[in-house]
């Protein structure tokens, strides 16, 4: 009989709407990060580096990019005879068909998957954070406390603490109480959304709560277990942990990689991050180029100037360009003499010659001031910008645009949104 000590369930079905246009076509875990990775590479690499070789990836929102990225799990060594990675989308049952309505509901709908591997422990993970974590240490903590549930927590600053779901523990780290975004926090340990459940406890709770609409771990499962006297412990994690849920935090986190010795170091031999990379050639920096404080992916050709930027693979930056404080994902080409400031460009975009992005005065975005802010210009996947266009700050552009889409044929004011969802470059 198959028996795995611990399997992981990775929740990758969410849209991540605060990433705006970046997640219009793909789930948040599939968004590119750090020049060659996608966000989901971090939890997947953590799994295999921690010795977990059975991972169920729960998908729902726009899963195509995730499916093609994960495949049968070869890049993470998760192609196994027994176990390995399985993609678990919602499916039709004989008596009903429902979407995943909440995090715990998604896990409940895959009870059979977990039963098949007959685990002792189940690790619940999210697919939207950048971190390196040894889940084995978490498991040892779980075992040594004889816990039913272990919640990974992260100490946040006291000023910020009121924005998080907090846990209050005794000296032995046993959880006494939960507080959701309290006005006056009594603890600064924030839940990371990473849990280890003893399988029996999880199974029982999920079956009991199966009729709960939108069943969620934080809102329903953990409070239910707490009320019923389960042993819940909080593990304190002190490494690098970055939420990349908003455009601003996504941009900041990418920029931190550029630091001389960043807090989150991708260059360490130990604890490698794996990804599916289909581009192999080296990058070329031309005689006309200047590159400083940047990281650049495979096969990219730079003829212009690049400062403080994270550039993906297969990008072309032509002569006379200036790219500063920007993130450019793979396959984009930027025409002669274009200038980009604080711009996030998704995959496979084409920027014409002599464009200027991220110029002009600060104005709030009219439609989504909370998403497109901090002066960022964001371009969706497959966007085309014609020659000579100037674009203001806090803007978003998507689709194949033509001069007639712009004011006077060449100007998009700060705070405007230009979405041509119907037409997009393949």
């Amino acid at each position: 009989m198959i028996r795995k000590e611990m399997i992981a369930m990775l929740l990758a079905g969410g849209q991540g709407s605060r990433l705006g246009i970046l997640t219009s076509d793909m789930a948040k875990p599939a968004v590119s990060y750090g020049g060659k990775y996608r966000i989901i590479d971090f939890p997947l690499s953590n799994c295999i580096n921690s010795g977990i070789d059975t991972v169920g990836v729960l998908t729902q929102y726009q899963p195509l990019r995730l499916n093609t990225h994960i495949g049968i799990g070869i890049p993470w060594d998760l192609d196994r005879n027994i176990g390995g990675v399985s993609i678990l989308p919602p499916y039709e049952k004989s008596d009903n068909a429902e979407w995943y309505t909440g995090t715990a509901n998604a896990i409940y709908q895959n009870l059979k998957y977990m039963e098949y591997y007959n685990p002792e422990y189940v690790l619940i993970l999210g697919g939207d954070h950048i971190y390196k974590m040894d889940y084995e240490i978490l498991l040892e903590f779980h075992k040594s406390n004889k816990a039913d549930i272990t919640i990974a927590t992260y100490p946040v600053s006291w000023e910020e603490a009121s924005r998080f779901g907090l846990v209050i523990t005794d000296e032995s780290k046993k959880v006494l109480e939960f507080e959701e975004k309290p006005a006056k926090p009594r603890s600064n340990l924030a839940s990371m959304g990473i849990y280890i459940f003893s399988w029996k406890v999880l199974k029982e709770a999920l079956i009991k709560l199966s009729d709960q609409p939108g069943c969620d771990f934080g809102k329903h499962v953990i409070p239910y277990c707490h009320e019923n006297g389960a042993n819940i412990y909080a593990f304190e994690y002190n490494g690098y942990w970055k939420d990349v849920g908003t455009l601003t935090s996504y941009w900041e986190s990418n920029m931190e990689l550029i630091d001389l010795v960043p807090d989150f170091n991708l260059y360490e031999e130990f604890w490698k991050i794996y990804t599916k990379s289909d581009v192999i050639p080296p990058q070329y920096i031309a005689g006309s180029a200047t590159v400083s404080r940047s990281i650049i992916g495979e096969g990219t050709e730079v003829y212009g100037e690049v400062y403080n930027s994270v550039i993906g693979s297969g990008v072309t930056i032509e002569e006379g360009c200036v790219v500063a404080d920007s993130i450019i994902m793979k396959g984009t080409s930027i025409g002669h003499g274009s200038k980009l400031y604080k711009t996030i460009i998704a995959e496979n975009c084409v920027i014409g010659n002599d464009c200027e992005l991220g110029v002009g005065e600060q104005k709030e975005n009219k439609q989504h001031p909370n998403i497109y802010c901090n002066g960022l210009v964001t371009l969706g996947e497959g966007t085309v910008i014609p020659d000579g266009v100037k674009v203001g700050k806090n803007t978003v552009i998507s689709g194949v645009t033509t001069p007639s889409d712009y004011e006077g044929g060449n100007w998009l004011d700060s705070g405007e949104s230009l979405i041509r969802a119907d037409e997009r470059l393949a």
Partner: protein
Amino acid sequence: MRAIGIVLAGGNNNRMRELSSKRAIAAMPIAGSYRAIDFALSSLSNSHIGKVAVLTQYNSRSLNEHLSSSKWWDFGRKQGGLFVFTPTITPDNSFWYRGTADSIYQNLNFLKTSHEPYVVICSGDGIYKLDFNKVLEYHVAKKADITVVCSRATPGTDISRYGVIETDEDMRITTFDEKPFFCKEAEPLISTGIYVIRRRQLIEMIEKAQEEERYEFVRDIIIRYKELKKIYVYEHTEYWRNIASVEDYYQTNMDFLKRDVRDYFFRQYPDVYSKIDDLPPAKYNAGATVKNSLISSGSIINGNVENSVIFKQVYVGNNCTIKNSIILNDVHIGDNTYLENCIVESRDTIRPNVSYIGEEGRIKVVVEKNERYLI
């Protein structure tokens, strides 16, 4: 699947100087992110030749390491696969490979147990992309016994390293001069070491050669049979270079600084595949100046790099200058170092404040092993 492939990767010669003391030429790193044999293997794979044997005997450790999985070139299939054959002792043979024909003879069972009608033989030290199906079609159309793929030598090529070929108007070979000292033509046809031959024909010829104690494929089969058999030339008109001397190796790497060469290999279909190393993107810190250079993943650049090819996982210290040089994989270069016209051997650690200067046409091969300080 009309053909199987054989890659001759055994070789070594003193023209590679220190560079081949630790690896076969087929395992030489090329163009920042590849190894020489990737070009032959990728061409075979892209031509849908799914069953390939690599014959090797000289210092094959780094080659074996590179070929540790066949999945990079998409060979790991139920039908076919990638086979690495080194010499083995059997009750009736305890020799090393005594020549290219002998290496095929010692693995004749590979040919005998296959069912594909044709064999493509290529060497592991050529840098090219070639659709072998086109060569096969040509071979069939010409009703040839053997087809030799040739390339025009560029002016200045050291022809004493190549087989120089003359043909009649129908492209049938009339003369084949192996490594001549002199050639009257400025741009002669030279053999690329790529051959197409019918499998049964090859078995017959190899067995015959063995009976006569002849072991060299070129000398004892191509040249010996050129009157008796119909041996034709297929001219490959696109990029082809052999890297089996330090100067050619250096020049071939430098060719990749040209946009048209990069476009041809890196951006035009089909791709060249290689082993994936899971390295992070290259990083440029403040103070880095890079001009006209190739930089590979996993590298960290702090100093000046000009007209150079930097391979994977290279650390270039502060205030260094690297000019017209090739830095192979996993090299650590200390601060204030000056390198010009050099090839730095892989896994070197270069101390700070040193300088190595080679000359144009006489490139310096730097081998310097030191304790590496972890930073």
